[in-house]
């Protein structure tokens, strides 16, 4: 599973993408796994209310299942337009 980061999440973690070999059941499980990696991950995921998540390029929720997911992305609220 690919995990992508955008905007300040990408900057805080230091790179745009990780490949994950484990099979977390939900987005929250994936977040916990990432938080445990290094301080910069813990810092990026410190406040989930400041983050949004997309599963396979569709906006989703932190309690969503990752069953069958190939790509998960974390980013701040969008500011286009």
């Amino acid at each position: 599973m690919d995990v992508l980061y955008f905007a300040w999440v990408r900057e805080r973690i230091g790179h745009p993408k990780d490949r994950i070999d484990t099979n977390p059941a939900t987005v929250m499980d994936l977040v916990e796994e990432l938080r445990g990696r290094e301080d910069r991950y813990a810092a990026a995921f410190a406040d989930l209310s400041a983050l949004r998540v997309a599963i396979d390029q569709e906006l989703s929720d932190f309690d969503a299942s990752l069953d069958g997911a190939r790509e998960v992305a974390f980013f701040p609220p969008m500011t286009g337009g």
Partner: protein
Amino acid sequence: MEIRVQDAPFDLGLEATRFAERQTGMGAVVTFTGIVRDLGEGDLHAMEIEHYPGMTEKALEEIAREAANRWSLGDILIIHRHGVLRAQDMIMMVATASKHRVDAFQAAEFLMDFLKSRAPFWKKEISAEKADWVAARDEDEDALKRW
């Protein structure tokens, strides 16, 4: 329906003319153009727009499809740039065509409201001293509630 996500500048005049001229039977065309605003402190040198290739196009298509379902529209155009832009550069535009003005206006506002908060773009303001990611505004999120 035409959706373009691009690094290159676009020509508002050319796009508006082409859009209007390819319509038949439409009485109303509305365009919205977003421009990089010099923030007045006189030191906004650039704006960088990051996006999520793949998801961006899907999200914009979904928003456009939803607008086409809700209003009677002849056509929709969305162009959104990414990369580094300068003050006064055009960031994006939408255009809508319909028989009557109300549909064209409503659809354009709907597209803008959803594009602002549901399409994966992020803006960073770069001045002489610093570079800050633009924070999402509560009023932009609230704007979605009226639809």
